[in-house]
């Protein structure tokens, strides 16, 4: 294989592996910036993956599948919101619980409806988000590195990939340039001040977690009906937690979130590529090392060795209006 092929192939799979992380980490950003810890990203992703696969199977439309995924993800978000905003329960416990519920419920329902051990039936290509070929991609493939890059990285991705990269600047704009964004950042730092200004802390936080559910719906849908053609047991496989790590690694900021997700996606792609191969000087590096690397990097960052990561001050604390 040519070096160019390897590099382009790796970049392509980096993009594909980063997309669910980007959506999920941006979802976490809204939730955590409003002061609600969200360990349940993983569960939301899984539940929406299942819902999108089921809806796409019955309707034959990927867009309705996406809608189903978003709907279920928002329902999970609202349960989390009810527990942590209205009932003032422990946000971490609520997230852990929802992850358990999603892991169990998806397989139980899948098994009862389709009898394939929790899997959903294989989808036809018309019910999926398939690759979009850009004009001139075929011709460009033969034209050196940039041509190949255009043909296999820029072109030939599904619509959700492009949506993810459009979402990043939109999120940046919402968080930093709108009134809602200002209030969102304020409520995660000092809800008391927001309340004093006459703005409802509760409604603001509910809106934040609904947006989180909305974005998680995209990542779950991407897993089930864009990257693959059916729902598989536990197909999120810890990606929700990696996204959480990426969010922290990016210090809760939208543009860095994208780069952190691309970095973690690249590590994933690189470890797939390196499986069974040996590196110069160090020999064969175990695949587990690459799997652990995102978490190790995040811990090193948290330790304050690469800048400082300061979480929103009011994160994890339920807001009580009066005592």
């Amino acid at each position, binding site marked *: 294989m040519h070096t160019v092929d390897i590099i382009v192939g790796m970049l392509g799979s980096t993009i594909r592996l980063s997309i669910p992380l980007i959506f999920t980490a941006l979802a976490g950003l809204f939730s955590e910036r409003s002061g609600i*810890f969200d*360990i349940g990203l993983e569960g939301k992703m899984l539940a929406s993956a299942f819902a999108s696969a089921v809806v796409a199977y019955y309707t034959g439309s990927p867009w309705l599948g996406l809608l189903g995924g978003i709907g279920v993800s928002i329902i999970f978000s609202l*349960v989390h919101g*009810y*527990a*942590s905003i209205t*009932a*003032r*329960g*422990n*946000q*971490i*416990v*609520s997230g*852990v*619980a*929802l*992850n*358990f*519920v*999603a*892991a*169990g*419920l998806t*397989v*139980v*329902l899948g*098994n*009862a409806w389709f009898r394939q051990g*929790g899997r959903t039936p294989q989808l036809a290509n018309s019910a999926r988000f398939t690759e979009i070929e850009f004009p001139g991609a075929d011709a460009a493939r033969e034209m050196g590195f940039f041509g190949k890059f255009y043909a296999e990285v820029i072109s030939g991705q599904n619509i959700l990939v492009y949506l993810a990269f459009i979402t990043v600047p939109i999120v940046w704009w919402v968080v930093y340039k709108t009134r809602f964004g200002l209030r969102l950042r304020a409520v995660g730092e000092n809800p008391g001040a927001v309340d004093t200004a006459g703005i409802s802390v509760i409604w603001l936080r509910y809106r934040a977690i609904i947006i989180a559910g909305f974005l998680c719906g995209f990542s779950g849908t991407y897993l089930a009906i864009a990257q693959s053609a059916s729902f598989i047991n536990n197909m999120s496989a*810890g990606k929700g*937690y990696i996204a*959480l*790590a990426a969010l*922290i690694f990016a210090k809760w900021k939208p543009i860095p979130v994208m780069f952190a997700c691309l970095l973690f996606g690249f590590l994933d792609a690189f470890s797939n590529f390196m499986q069974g191969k040996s590196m110069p000087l160090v020999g064969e590096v*175990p695949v*587990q*090392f690459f*799997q*652990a690397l995102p*978490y*190790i990097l*995040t*811990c090193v960052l*948290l*330790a*304050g060795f690469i800048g400082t*990561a300061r*979480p929103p001050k009011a994160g*994890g604390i339920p807001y*009580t209006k*009066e*005592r």
Partner: protein
Amino acid sequence: MNAANAPLPGWVTFFLMPLLNLGTALLISGFVIWMIGQNPFEALSVLLNGALGSGMGIGFTLFYATNFIFTGLSVAMAYHAGLFNIGSEGQAYVGGLGCALVALALDQYVPWYVTMPFAILGAAIFGAAWAFIPAWLQAKRGSHIVITTIMFNFIGAALMVYLLVHVLKPAGAMSPETRGFAAGGQLPNLDWLMAMFGSRLGPAPLNVSFIIGLVMCFAVWFLIWRTKFGYSVRALGMSKTAATYAGIPYARTVIITMLMSGGLAGMMALNVVMGSADRLQVEFVGGAGFVGIAVSLMGRNHPLGILMAAILFGILYQGGAQLSFMMPQITRDMIVMIQGLVILFAGALEFLYRPALVRIFSRRQSLAEA
């Protein structure tokens, strides 16, 4: 008076509320069972019968409960210092390494009762070591312990898979696990305990770890409520600033508490690694660390409560296994979901019924006074 902090009788807080929460979780589970076309009442009876209907069922129930006692105590220990340790899962996993290394070194030379104390130490030290870095980061660098312990769960899982696949697996073996332990590395079953009640344990792996778990319940209670160190832990949990002002060293207390928490989680490995599987296997913890969070919350962070909550989850586990056997439509995943609902209602939504209960009981009180 504000409904949120109005006092309630003890039995309401400690028994009625958890019971109502549990009932709600089961109600929703029953609804899901009904939705997939099965009879929820039959399922409940199969579940209870499977968990408590025979000596073997009880043996399995208590075996699972033993796991949750250790992880529940681990979470509670940290919680008293105001620390939220969700890394019990990883600490138990790494604790298994300490336990297995001791068993592999000694099993062919000495009887189990010589191996056991070293295995307890090994499991506790390795579990504690895995809690040390998050604890140090929290104490010295202010990194949020919730986040670092999550990260360490994953780092631990990767480390253990690597060690099992590349280092500990005997040459030529297929599955990623250590060799089986000889008799000196196996904890004996508690047949005699069952015989005392005129029942038989059968193949259930209930073992000496259960008794160690009970001892640790007492030890944790004594440590938290009857020692100077326990006092400083609780003071820290109430208010960091007040505790620091009173001269309690923050960093040292945090680190020692987390080491104990990690050690307790690590000791869970004894029950599975030496008590049942007799080898170290991939993913042997199987979520017990996360269930520990629910157990600790439901048990109001008190060892007695933890013991009861652990038995409850033991019933769910064993009953669930029986359920998937007797009613094949209801797979083990149903139990994962029921666990999730129990954690949700007993943990995150624990005060769901509190306002209503306050209304009921304050009215009764005012009537009694009039």
